[in-house]
């Protein structure tokens, strides 16, 4: 990998992790979705940069599929199937306040770095930073899922976790047979469709998509 590609990739990674944190602290749902689109574009950009020299068809295809699926198809499915009223809402009933969530996100960033060090020491990858920040992205996606109660941000948390996993994946397993393309091109749109069907059913039943407040099913102890 040439030096300028390497530095450009580092810039992309930095922006990627900023979008992950931005998703945690953005309260308006449509803004959260837009940040997710940006994050997916950054994932694709990193795939293009890593696959640029030496040229890799595999990573190029992965980048293209990511853009088509996560930046275009999924937002379209979520927008067209879930009522527009949901997207303009500002979520005020987060279970953790924004400053606390921000501190937690920075903590997870450090955890990602700490986990990345022994992994990168054990084997060669295209870009060690992708491994650390991918793991951090996955953990911050999990945080988003925990602090939000609305259906759409929760699912964006899952998709953000997946973006993190693949950010590491493009560096450590660039020749991975088929799975990444198939998963992103096929599984993820199915996921978005099913989420949208379910969220719409919840909306029709309760008048909102605040799935975090559903708590009829629990044990006594």
């Amino acid at each position, binding site marked *: 990998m040439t030096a300028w590609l390497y530095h450009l990739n580092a810039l992309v990674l930095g922006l990627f992790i900023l979008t992950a944190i931005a998703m945690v602290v953005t309260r308006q749902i449509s803004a959260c979705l837009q940040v997710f689109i940006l994050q997916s574009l950054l994932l694709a950009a990193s795939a293009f940069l890593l696959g640029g020299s030496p040229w890799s068809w595999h990573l190029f295809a992965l980048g293209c599929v990511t853009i088509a699926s996560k930046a275009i198809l999924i937002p379209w499915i979520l927008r067209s199937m879930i009522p527009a009223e949901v997207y303009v809402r500002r979520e005020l009933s987060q279970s953790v306040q924004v400053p606390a969530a921000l501190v937690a996100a920075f903590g997870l960033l450090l955890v990602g770095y700490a986990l990345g060090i022994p992994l990168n020491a054990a084997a060669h990858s295209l870009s060690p930073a992708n491994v650390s920040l991918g793991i951090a992205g996955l953990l911050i996606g999990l945080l988003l899922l925990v602090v939000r109660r609305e259906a759409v941000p929760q699912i964006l948390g899952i998709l953000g976790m997946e973006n*993190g*996993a693949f950010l590491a994946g493009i560096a450590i397993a660039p*020749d991975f*047979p088929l799975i990444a393309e198939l*998963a992103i091109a096929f599984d993820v749109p199915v996921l978005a469709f099913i989420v949208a069907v379910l969220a719409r059913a919840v909306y029709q*039943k309760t008048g909102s998509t605040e799935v975090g407040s559903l708590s009829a099913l629990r044990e006594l*102890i």
Partner: protein
Amino acid sequence: MVIMAWLILALPVVAALVLAAPRSERIGAKVTIACAVVSFALSIAVMLSVQGGGRLVLVPHWFEIDPLSALLLLLVTFVSSTAAIYSSGSIGKSQGTVRTRLYYANFNLFVFSMLSIPLIIELGLVWIAVELTTLLSVLLVSFAGTGEALEAAWKYMLLTLIGATTAVLGVLILFWALQSAGSADFTWSGLRDAAHGMPAILVRIAFVLILVGYGTKVGLVPLHAWLPDAHSQAPSPVCALLSGVETTVVLYVLLRLRGVFLDVPSTHVQTWFAVSGLLSVGVAVLLILQTQDFKRMFAFSTVEHMGIVLTAASFATPLGDAAAVWQILAHAVTKSFCFYAAGSTLLVTGTRSIAEVSGLIGKSKRASAALLLGALAISGAPPFAVFLSELAILRAGLLSGHYVVIGLLATFIAMGFFGVLFHVVNMTCGRPKVDHLPRLPLPLACSVTLAIAAVPVVLLGVWIPPSLLRLLLQAAAVSGG
């Protein structure tokens, strides 16, 4: 034979495509039952061809059938056959024709996703198949459309997708480790051959990530929170599929993984399996004791049995493996029967509450008899199959010197036995507490399902067909790596 194996996978897809077309409401149940029964017959043929320990290669490096996967095919097709027959009785006209049609289409797709897991030997595709089992069953769980069903479906989807995403990082790291060892054959056998050359830290982290990820789907404590909700709110035939075989096919993946890493000392596979297995059994038994909903009780019993299989697999002896495989078979047939019995009770009384059902024997002899039979069989009373497999597990543990594990396991199993029977005896023979409990008729298809599903439950404890026994022993040998 290869064509037959492909047909097993193709039939549910064909059925789903037929049923996705409009105006196919009337044939929904018939097409589904026909496809499921034919698949079951084909699975028997496939099983007979590999029972001696042979392998059936469909596509080299991608699709293959060995005795262990043949056993799984047999279980999935058997339970999907009975679940299809039961559906024809319980998913009725009251739900609306379009919803019924979509139910059957979705049912077939879900069965397809479960059948694909044992056929695939490439780990990347296995991951996609595991994720598909979640995605294709979420809308079946929410089928009833009530607030509780939607809540259960949402929790199920969210938690198992977190698991799947955790697992995908594990799978990617595992591939990284494989390439570092100079190989690119990402199959079960390819991994086993390269296991010793992989960087230990990568293997260890990948193993833990995959165990946590797929463990969520199996319902291992503390990742089980979604399971009792989904496995109790779904329509009963779907519960039978979820509890009887969906958990089992993912557990199968963990068993394969164990075979790969058993020889790599730094991964501590045995310790991980023993601790998570025992924790699941112990917590599930306590939850069984306090539950007030009989479908949830059987769901907790699934967590218990998954833990028992994992504990048996942690011994890593030929005897332990044989007992684990035997337990998988016994659990799948018995638990699906239990959910048909529970579903019939729900149909007859209209309630899931253990207390309200009290005195069921005065209302429905069939449902009571089925509940009692199911409870005795699943809790491990002689002379049923679960009793034999649990006895074999205890024996395997004692012979390999795991005295503490066996002490705990035996205690938990005994507590689970009393917990399940206490509830079910109260439900069937207790004094009626609610006077005006409705008394609805049990559809014929449901009675027929109970009769068919009871056959292996009763039979396998006293007699096992020689070819099935050979298959079990070969499957145990395969799972040992």
